[in-house]
């Protein structure tokens, strides 16, 4: 009955060898963490998380810049994070001595938010900078960290051109 069993054994050996090759290849090719959490490489999560940061976060800034924090607390810019205007400064936070933040051009930086646009919320302070200041730097009159010009000092009132355009579009 099993006269030609040798053929079957040969076939079985071939299949077993192929199976072994497949298993070895699979172990070698599939990353170790594949399937740790699901059908993907689990180590990819840690690799993504290991990327260095560029924005230090306002907590890092406020640890040193206490005078600016005090100033900002008195005005509407209290809620604006430092790096919203000053840009990404994680390198400065890591090494304050050798990396210094660049000086900002307020005529450009302020206009990014406060240039009038019909799609902006109506209660957001907006100006047409061409009418409001004629393109001169905003910090000529406004202190950027506490932008409201105090009305008690009449001097400040005089230096502010065309107040009518302020606050409304």
């Amino acid at each position, binding site marked *: 009955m099993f006269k030609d069993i040798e053929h079957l054994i040969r076939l079985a050996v071939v299949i077993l060898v192929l199976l072994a090759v497949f298993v070895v290849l699979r172990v070698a090719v599939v990353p*170790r963490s594949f399937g740790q959490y699901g059908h993907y490489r689990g180590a990819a999560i840690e690799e993504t998380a290991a990327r260095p*940061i560029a924005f230090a*976060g306002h907590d890092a800034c406020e640890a040193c810049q206490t005078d600016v924090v005090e100033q900002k607390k008195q005005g509407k810019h209290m809620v604006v994070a430092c*790096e919203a205007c000053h840009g990404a400064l994680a390198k400065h936070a890591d090494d304050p001595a050798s990396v210094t933040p660049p000086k900002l051009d307020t005529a450009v930086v302020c206009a*990014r938010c406060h240039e009038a646009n019909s*799609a902006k919320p109506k209660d957001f302070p907006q100006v*047409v900078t061409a009418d409001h200041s004629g393109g001169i730097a905003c910090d000529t009159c406004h202190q950027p960290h506490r932008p409201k010009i105090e009305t008690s000092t009449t001097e400040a009132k005089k230096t502010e051109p065309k107040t009518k355009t302020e606050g409304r579009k």
Partner: protein
Amino acid sequence: MDLTRRRLLVLLPAAAVAWKYVLAGTPEASPNYKLTEHWWTMLIDIPKCIGCGSCVRACAEENDVPDGYFRTWIERYHVADWKIERPEVTSPNGGKQGFPPNQDASGKNFFVPKLCNHCSDSPCTQVCPVGATFVTPDGVVLVDKNYCLGCRYCVQACPYGCRFINPKTKTAEKCSLCYHRITKGMTTACCEVCPTGARQLADLKNPKDPIHEFLRTHNVQILKPHMATGAKVFYNGMDGSVR
């Protein structure tokens, strides 16, 4: 022990596998961060968005997003009178430099920041043939750029247009919800710089997160709910014309 041909043949595959692990190294782990204790999402408060483009610039800087590609972008909607089904949507350079002033002021005008919705049943992860994109246990859709083939299936599958192929790496890329920041206890770059608080990172598994109170007390929507993607970027004050 002599190194015979037989022994060498046995040792070579083993050595190759071992070397692979050595090369992979151990990535820097975030201490005290538990994957299962978070479920990240974002809240977009449309009435607060001023279209300044800070988020777009910050995202590009934080994540090395190439010029002309966007992980987040801002759209300006102009809805003329009753034409709610045909809004005019503009997004010059993704709103990176803000929006030109003196645009059509008639009708209804507002800004909508867009980003990956970090869907819990995301179509993009379902179509990936190799498992290079996935939803993490803390609810963030990530791309494994070392595993991605660049086949573009996911780019087509995303109903929100949130994915692109990075021209340098030729792999799929998208918003990672600043995973390298949120796992260190920081907020995302876009939320960090948003001057009006129109974007807020939220953790749905954190019972103390103000998101819960916000969702209870506001009329909040998600984008394209009919697609059943499980999108979890919540939009407050969203007009019906937004898609």
